[in-house]
């Protein structure tokens, strides 16, 4: 993969559904700062540490700002404390009491209330006051042109197969289709037979069949193996070598839908979104949002902090194409 094949995020054929923390706009808190002579910096910091309330929840803000005025000149400013922690009168009397009136001249400034979660927020907020920001590369997914073409092709086939119904497809990392099912609530007269639940059932059924034929132990598999295994079940039964191959490298063995992607014509409901958490899905691509959808519209179940697994969600893939060919629904997808 060469870097020139990476497609910038603003050219993706979908949008990432970010957590509220990642997508929120600037919120600020007021704080007292003071300009300070470089040689007085240590004294002022000692005063702050000894006598002023500590900065709470603002660990992302640097204590000192260095502003360049010209090639040789610069100006230093220091955060004293949050405005909500102490009144200006009380602060000024503390300054007088400790004989710092020459060194400290409080002014009020706005600071970003939250640490930036991604580069976009960092770039937008850093002009207020310098912040520490360690970019998490996991927060910066990359897609090559080829990957995007494959993703679009999966969704196009899914919509073409859907006959206007809600439909889902689970794909392994090599691009192999592991399951593809429609919503069958009407046919089976079962209110829970949504497309996503049906797909997860199909993957589970295949694994169960595998286990039954191979032996009582749950087969440890890598994410990309399961479909190949199924096609050669007879071989697995007859050769012990192959059975051995199944259990090799247990540390890399996958679990349920670990590492798989799912394509869905509609934004899933709470039940389906949570079923995908339980199944350890890696990525969700959906086309159109729904009124009760829980991956962006009503809730963002995929990014909720208390859950033990988080997956990435991309929406709007072939949205117009889907809208033309799929019925709009007033019930859960």
């Amino acid at each position, binding site marked *: 993969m060469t870097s020139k094949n990476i497609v910038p995020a603003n050219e993706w054929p979908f949008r990432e559904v970010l957590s509220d923390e990642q997508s929120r706009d600037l919120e600020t808190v007021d704080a007292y700062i003071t300009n300070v002579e470089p040689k007085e910096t240590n004294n002022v910091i000692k005063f702050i540490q000894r006598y002023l309330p500590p900065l709470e929840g603002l660990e992302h803000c640097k204590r000192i700002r260095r502003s360049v005025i010209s090639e040789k000149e610069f100006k230093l400013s220091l955060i004293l404390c949050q405005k909500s922690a102490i009144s200006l009168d009380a602060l000024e009397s503390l300054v007088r009491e400790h004989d710092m009136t020459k060194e400290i001249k409080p002014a009020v400034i706005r600071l970003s209330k939250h640490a930036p979660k991604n580069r976009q927020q960092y770039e937008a907020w850093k002009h207020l006051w310098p912040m520490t920001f360690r970019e998490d590369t996991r927060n910066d997914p990359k897609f090559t042109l080829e990957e995007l073409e494959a993703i679009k092709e999966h969704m196009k086939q899914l919509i073409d197969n859907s006959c206007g119904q809600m439909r889902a497809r689970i794909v392994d990392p090599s691009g192999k289709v592991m399951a593809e099912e429609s919503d069958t609530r009407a046919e089976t*007269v*079962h*209110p*829970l037979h949504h497309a996503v*639940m049906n797909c*997860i*059932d199909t*993957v*589970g*059924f295949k*694994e*169960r069949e595998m*286990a039954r034929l191979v032996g009582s132990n*749950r087969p440890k598999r890598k994410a990309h193996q399961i479909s190949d295994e199924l096609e050669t079940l007879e071989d697995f039964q007859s050769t012990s070598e192959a059975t051995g191959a199944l259990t090799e490298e247990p540390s890399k063995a996958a679990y*349920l839908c670990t590492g798989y992607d799912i394509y869905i014509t509609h934004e899933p*409901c*709470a*039940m*389906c*979104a*949570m*079923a995908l*958490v*339980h*199944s*350890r899905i890696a990525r969700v691509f959906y086309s159109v949002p729904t*009124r*009760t959808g*829980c991956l962006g519209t*009503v*809730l963002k*179940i995929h990014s*909720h902090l*208390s*859950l*033990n697994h988080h997956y990435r969600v991309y929406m709007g893939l072939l949205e117009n194409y889907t809208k033309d060919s799929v019925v709009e629904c*007033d*019930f*859960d997808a």
Partner: protein
Amino acid sequence: MTTSVYNDQFMLEALKVAQEAYDNLEVPVGCVFVKNGKIIAHGRNKPNETFNATRHAEIEAIDDILKEHTADVFSDTDLYVTVEPCVMCASALRQVGIRHVYFGCGNDKFGGNGSVFDIHTDPRLKTPVSKHYASEGNKHAEEAVLLLRKFYVRENNHGKLYKLI
């Protein structure tokens, strides 16, 4: 439609089903669905047995019920479950139209009936078939928690044994 009245004997029955899950190496959660004072289905966790992480106690029992009834049976049916329904099951229970849910201990990680999300009452989730339902917790919570603790201790010991061999 008659209103729901809690009956302790059904929660004790749900705990028995949870014990059955424990005996089968599943996370010990059990439930019973009750209509007109009679149990119409038992359900216990089966994700390991089925290779399907969605086969929770509630889903197992709902599937059994729908083999013999249509979904309108749930409009005067109550659920007794040893652990707060997860977000998935909480949503499933809305969509089948359950009348009332009684649960044992809460679930801080996944709970959909108040602990993590209020799936059971969230007005934004209303559809022509999905309605809010009443939910009460803390029914024999200690027994439910004890069973879960026992399960996780056993799991960890298995992990140690596995390494020793």
